[in-house]
């Protein structure tokens, strides 16, 4: 694998975040430092409630760290921005806009003229394989279709960074596999910097250049596994999901990761 030193895109420096719910507040993220390089696909896995979403939200600019700082391209992150697109687990499509209108939203807002917009929308509708549904409303689509539109909406806006929070969590197993393959394919053709959160170890190993394992709450980094750098699973991206998942290397890695996470769950009595 090429070892070109790519610039640091996202940096978290000793970030701690407090989370408030009702009357109590607790430490969700505890002194986490992480650097993500441009074009990298980093996946965060960890037990439920370990603060992964909260951590990602600091990069998204939706949450301010109580301690520490977050940077993009060396500049401190102060709030949300179109350069850091977010894909949510619950889709968050605008129900009053059609598929095309949803995808065009960011573009329209930035003043891109109609002809150009239509071209871009068309391209992404094709990319997510939803030709024919341009004028449909979200409530007419299935879960998988909706999530594809959510991803296209962010992708079309060409953010430099993609923050994806368990985007496939609400989908059934088969749709999920298809989406993972699609995302992998999209990542090959249009490389962006991606931070991806998931519960699923399979998904993490399949998609990620690096896998970050977080501890239970308060979240810290337990271990980082550099899959791509160390070429742990060769030719992973060119293969189909079902084939990758059965590779010997994959299973070994999965066993290791899962062991780490399971230890967290049992130790901290989360179950």
């Amino acid at each position, binding site marked *: 694998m090429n070892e070109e030193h790519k610039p640091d895109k996202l940096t978290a420096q000793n970030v701690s975040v407090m989370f408030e719910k009702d009357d109590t507040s607790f430490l969700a993220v505890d002194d986490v430092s992480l650097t993500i390089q441009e074009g990298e696909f980093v996946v965060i896995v960890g037990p439920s409630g370990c603060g992964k979403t909260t951590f990602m939200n600091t990069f*998204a*600019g*939706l949450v301010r760290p109580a301690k520490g700082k977050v940077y993009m391209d060396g500049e401190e992150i102060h*709030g*949300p*921005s*179109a350069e*850091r*697109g*977010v894909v*949510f687990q*619950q889709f*968050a*499509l*605008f*129900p*009053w*806009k059609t598929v095309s209108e949803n995808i065009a*939203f*960011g573009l329209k*807002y*930035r003043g891109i003229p109609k002809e150009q917009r239509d071209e871009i929308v068309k391209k992404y509708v094709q990319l997510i394989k939803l030709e024919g549904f341009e004028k449909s*409303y*979200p*409530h007419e689509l299935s879960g998988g279709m909706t999530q594809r539109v959510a991803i296209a*909406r*962010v992708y079309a*806006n060409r953010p430099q960074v993609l*923050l994806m929070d368990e985007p496939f969590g609400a989908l059934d197993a088969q749709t999920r596999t298809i989406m993972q393959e699609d995302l992998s394919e999209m990542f090959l053709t249009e490389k962006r910097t991606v931070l991806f959160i998931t519960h699923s170890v399979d998904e993490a190993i399949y998609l990620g250049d690096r896998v970050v394992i977080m501890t239970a709450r308060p979240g810290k980094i337990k271990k980082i596994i550099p899959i791509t750098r160390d070429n742990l699973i060769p030719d992973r991206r060119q293969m189909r999901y079902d084939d990758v998942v059965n590779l010997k290397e994959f299973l070994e890695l999965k066993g290791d990761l899962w062991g780490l996470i399971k230890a967290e769950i049992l130790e901290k009595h989360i179950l």
Partner: protein
Amino acid sequence: MAQKRNSMVSRRVTLAAVSMTAGIGVWFFLTSVARLIPPAFLPPPQNIVTDFFRILGSPYVGHTLVGHTLVSLQIVLGGFFSALLIGIPLGILMGWFKRIEAIVDPLFQLLRPIPPLAWIPISLLWFGIGMQSKIFVIWLSAFVPCVINSYTGIRLTEPLLVKAALGLGVKRQRDLLREVAIPSALPIILGGVRIGLGSAWMTLVAAELLASDAGLGYMMQMARRALEPSVIILGMLVIGILGALMARGLRALEKRVCPWVKEEEH
């Protein structure tokens, strides 16, 4: 299967027809044939039909049926539209800007429990017996639901959608309001408009019963004094039909303005 559906439908229709015929039949019997009910109390069904054509053609206490209807409609629509123009923006602003809510809400809550009808005598005192006093009360009755629903609609905006918009580059408060909150609230706002229209219509009738010299309510009052219940009933029917038409019109409008809303029963 289709056969079963057809027979169910025809059964329904038959029963409906039976009950309507029976109803009218009993009515006819009690009033015309057995004469158990005096015409001053409840007119026979045929009288209603003849009186319908009577007041359609020639004026009754000043206007024909159409004339009275137009007078009533004018006043209702006048008050109603001005209520929309002020109520909806106010509700939206109250829902979005907490400061505005803090200032307006307490006054609003104080005035809200008072039924708009109760304002009629004060309104008469302030504006006299002209159209203004009626329009004021009608405006009030449509104003309240518009404000409440607009406020609620905005408040119920899903934070998730706001976050999504933020992540797509929307920055200013007023853009968030325009791009996310208002479209999301539109169905609820239109619901409030519908309620407001019904309320306005009701208030109009009451206002006309109390102090008017034209209009459907006035027509009914005069008919009562003259012991002509058929005209009263005709007035009631016209009011009912107009109210239903307006509601249906609004629902059709809702469907066009908010094509994304799922259909619900009723």
